[in-house]
């Protein structure tokens, strides 16, 4: 296929249970693209969930609505620079296929063998109440029906420019492969929107950007103040803290916008045989934290990579996500950081000494915290530990310094 620089929309199609939705959002986040699920738009326009559209109005009605939505998505400029996940039966409709096929979009098909699809449907049924009554599992021989569906529908997916085989691959593997394919096919679309930390984490696949857990977190856990339970690591990077917590027996959810980071973490967890860690490639600005779910939440130098107002929203979500008596470990770069001093003086205007002390990733920092600002933001919690300092950092790149605030707090018991 020839590269077309004008490709401004990426469509992901494919059979059910191939990871379209699970991977789609992560890929869009990673590439800085908008994310649209066609089924969500259909549901919004018809003011009823897609399952209900099928049940109440039948597949044909759904297809009609679906093709109208697709036409809109393909022509409305607000959907440019977006990754769009289409429903599993979308290509079966001629109208939808006609809407999809065109020169200004890239169509990617996630494919899987009938065996993998069956396995995934069985798995999701056994682990989720939502799929407890998957219609396909009600027939005597579901594998046979899945094979038939796959064989019949396969040619319809021939509209795709690229096919990603998902058999035997983790969601992270699928994301990485898809991202590589998109970068190859639409370099102009993704060049400007690549996640900054992907470059850092992909420099040396065998080496971690930060090899050790944050010392105050280590102290908190090893002191026994917080016993193992549910832990959330926001902005986990390659998982320095998430891996530590998983080794300590926590059930860990690790979230980061960088697919390279999530991929590395996933590989390391696999190598270490840690099954109690779930890696999600998501933007924490949009990540929903289940209220009062976690015993421990970590946000290590991540709030400083958000705009101030975004950081405040993330802090509120974080607090709501903690159980009563739950702990948070938060750290953020401060205005004592050499990066801030140079930034304040204007780029490349700082003193030579300040310049040499700057971290190689200082350009990604968006908010430096004022003195005591972090502490103030958690004033409604019990502050267990708080320290602001300027520290030497030799863990990555040339030796440099960081002005950093570290906080451990606890949500009061009722």
């Amino acid at each position, binding site marked *: 296929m020839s590269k077309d620089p004008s490709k401004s929309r990426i469509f992901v199609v494919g059979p059910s249970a191939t990871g379209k939705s699970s991977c789609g959002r992560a890929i869009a986040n990673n590439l800085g693209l908008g994310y649209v699920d066609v089924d969500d738009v259909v549901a919004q326009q018809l003011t009823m969930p897609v399952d209900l559209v099928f049940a109440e109005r039948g597949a044909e009605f759904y297809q009609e609505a679906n093709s109208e939505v697709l036409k809109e998505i393909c022509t409305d400029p607000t959907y440019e620079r977006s990754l769009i996940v289409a429903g599993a039966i979308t290509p079966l409709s001629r109208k939808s296929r006609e809407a999809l096929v065109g020169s200004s979009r890239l169509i990617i098909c996630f494919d899987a063998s009938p065996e993998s699809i069956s396995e995934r449907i069985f798995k999701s049924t056994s682990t989720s109440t939502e799929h407890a009554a998957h219609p396909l599992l009600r027939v005597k021989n579901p594998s046979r029906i899945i094979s038939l569906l796959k064989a*019949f529908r396969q040619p319809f997916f021939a509209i795709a420019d690229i096919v990603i085989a998902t058999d035997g691959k983790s969601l992270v593997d699928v994301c990485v492969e898809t991202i590589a394919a998109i970068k190859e096919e639409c370099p102009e679309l993704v060049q400007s929107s690549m996640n900054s930390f992907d470059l850092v984490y992909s420099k040396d696949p065998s080496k971690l950007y930060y090899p050790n857990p944050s010392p105050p977190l280590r102290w908190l856990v090893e002191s026994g103040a917080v016993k193992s339970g549910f832990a959330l690591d926001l902005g986990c990077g390659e998982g320095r803290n998430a891996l530590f917590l998983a080794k300590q027996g926590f059930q860990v959810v690790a979230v980061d916008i960088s697919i390279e980071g999530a991929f590395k973490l996933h590989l390391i967890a696999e190598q270490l045989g840690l099954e109690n860690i779930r890696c999600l490639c998501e933007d924490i600005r949009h990540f929903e934290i289940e209220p009062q779910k976690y015993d421990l939440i970590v946000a290590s130098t991540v709030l400083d990579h958000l705009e101030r107002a975004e950081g405040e929203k993330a802090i509120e979500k974080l607090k709501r996500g903690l159980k009563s008596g739950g702990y948070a470990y938060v750290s953020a770069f401060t205005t004592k950081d050499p990066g801030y001093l140079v930034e304040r003086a204007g780029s490349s205007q700082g003193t030579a000494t300040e310049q040499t002390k700057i971290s190689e990733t200082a350009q990604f920092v968006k908010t430096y915290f004022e003195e005591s600002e972090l502490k103030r933001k958690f004033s409604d919690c019990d502050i267990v530990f708080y320290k602001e300092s300027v520290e030497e950092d030799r863990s990555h790149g040339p030796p440099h310094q960081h002005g950093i605030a570290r906080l451990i707090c606890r949500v009061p018991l009722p």
Partner: protein
Amino acid sequence: MLPLVEKAKASLPALVLELLEQNADEKMDAILDSLGEDRLQSVLLHYFANQSLGSRFSRALVLGHISSPILVKCLSELLASHTEFVKEICFTLGWIGTDNAVEVLKNSLGSSQEKIRLYATFVLGEVGGLRMAPFIVNMLQDPSDEVREMSAFSIGWNQGNYRVDLLEGLIPNVTDEQEKAIKLALDMIGSKRAKELRSKLSKR
């Protein structure tokens, strides 16, 4: 001479596909028409027997590169005269998806061959749309377990609650065997209305 003729015939399917690859769409139908029904039927059988050629052919059909009416006619005749490749023929009609192709599938529901009824029911469920729903529902009364189950699947999977009324219409005259299939369809639909009807059926 004979081996040469056989060789030429054998290469015909690949030749036709080669033209497709070259996007000779407009010429495609003319070529198919010029083959004549007999030769086109043997080309089709060759596709069905060869997975790689078959998948290229199905792709061309789905992408709308082929729309010759002679094709549907040939497939219809193959379905009537062959016991082999029944699934492939029904699938191909579904990939063509035109009204006349759907009509052939609909008429095949009355075939004496169980396999034809089975695959026609499946494909009609996939591409037949709402207007085929009454015919698929009728297959719940088929003598074959497999066909009844396929019919239940197609209704539950594609038609949902929307066609519960059709299922309701069957209840007064339903046999025990047919009842199983109707219950399966209702279970697959799973809506409140379907559950109510299922309970009504159980109390009969």
